[in-house]
């Protein structure tokens, strides 16, 4: 029993600098893992829609035809399911929460228009792919043909 048992601590507090973080005068401090908002490196995104499927709150909407990736920051619960699920690892959980606002909004990333070079490269890639496919098909057919032959 006794009284004033907290007084020592109180006096210590009185003569020490307060522990208060002076936000917003001083910017907030984040750790390396701090969760804030989800950012999509849209260039890498292939609009596969896995993140949309994995998101438990339906915060992400992927519109393949329109080439957009949309997130509703007012629905995202920072669970990181999308980040972990993304096959391209193009989603990251950035520091810094979505700032409060007087109205709710969504954030949309559109796949950027490709530059001429990229266009060419893409075309080249597609062409190469088509060729590869064609080759493979041919090879398969050839194989099949062989097998048929073998059967016969």
């Amino acid at each position, binding site marked *: 029993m006794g009284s004033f048992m*907290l007084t020592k601590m109180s006096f210590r507090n009185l003569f020490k600098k307060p522990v208060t973080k002076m936000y917003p005068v001083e910017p907030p401090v984040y750790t390396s893992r701090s969760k804030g908002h989800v950012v999509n490196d849209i260039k890498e995104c292939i609009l596969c829609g896995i993140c949309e499927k994995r998101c*438990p709150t339906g915060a992400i909407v992927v519109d393949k035809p329109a080439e957009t990736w949309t997130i509703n920051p007012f629905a995202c619960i920072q669970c990181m399911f999308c980040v972990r699920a993304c096959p391209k690892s193009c989603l990251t959980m950035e520091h810094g929460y979505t700032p409060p606002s007087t109205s709710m909004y969504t954030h949309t990333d559109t796949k950027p228009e490709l530059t001429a070079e990229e266009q060419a490269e893409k075309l080249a890639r597609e062409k190469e792919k088509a060729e590869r496919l064609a080759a493979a098909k041919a090879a398969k057919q050839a194989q099949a043909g062989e097998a048929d032959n073998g059967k016969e």
Partner: protein
Amino acid sequence: MGKKTIIPFGPQHPVLPEPVHVDLVVEDEKVIEAIPQIGFIHRGLEKLVQKKDFMQFVAVTERICGICAFGHSMGYSETIEILMGLEIPKRAQYLRVIWHELSRIHSHLLWLGLLADGFGYENLFMQCWRLRENVLGIFEKTTGGRVIFSACNVGGVTQDIEDGDLKGIVAILDGMRSEYEELLKTFLYDSSVKNRLSGIGYLSKQDAESLCLAGPFARASGLVEDCRLDGYGGYGDLAAFEPVLSEDGDGHARCEVRAREVYQSMDIIAEMVSKIPDTPISLPVKGMPGAGTAAVHHVEQPRGESFYYAKGNGTKFLSRFRIRTPTSHNIGGMTKILQGCDLADVALNILTIDPCISCTER
């Protein structure tokens, strides 16, 4: 004197962190009747299993309650792991224990603060919450979140803590000890605190037993009641585990049990850190919970036993998921101790059972 004082206590009431409603019938300041009612936070989340697959659902369970958030995700994950026969790696088990015990420290500090506020000791409240920020800092550093941090999923944990950081956690906790000691002394021995806590809301061991109390509420009445004794997950590897008990059965005893459990948790964390093996932190989950399989599990949350039941049906959606939370056990005890107490003690009595309305109502 025909008339009685009848007060609507809650759901909005500054002393209640969560909405509860109590019809209080008071004479002078003596409570002669107290009829509680809840339901203001009921969301119906158990039914969500039909809409969220069993892997996603861990995010829902984590939000059963923002205080024992980790505990619920762990309880759920372990239930599913039992259901699917998964044995998760030891490191994941140990990490779960560490986070879970950290949660207990943060929960108890939070509760101690609220209790202090309940008896009008603002400074003490502030100091408890000031210390608690250390634990939240650990959470943010290790998982990125302060209160809800999605560190657990079925099959293990989502992120590792490097060994250096583990040492750091122990160091932070050790650093807290001396200041916590002062708080503990204030709670247990300061005359003005004792004056408010001693003797209020007494429940005998028999009462505690017949009312099926759980957690610190039960332990404060001398009941050995702690799921951690079952040694699930990493708890099985503890060298020794003795629940903190008190025989007094009053508000002060409940305060004491929780306050001392903070040390216990610190010790458990230190032990886990010293023993933690270097294994993977999760294992891939394949397949679905099988049709017709069911599992039950229980976890010792800061407030007591939380009970889980899950039933699979062969799809990615569970067909049933149920929780029974510590407060559901304890609410009978609360109504009992409210009878005949002083109005000034109503809030305290409600607080000393550390009610968790959010998880109770789900």
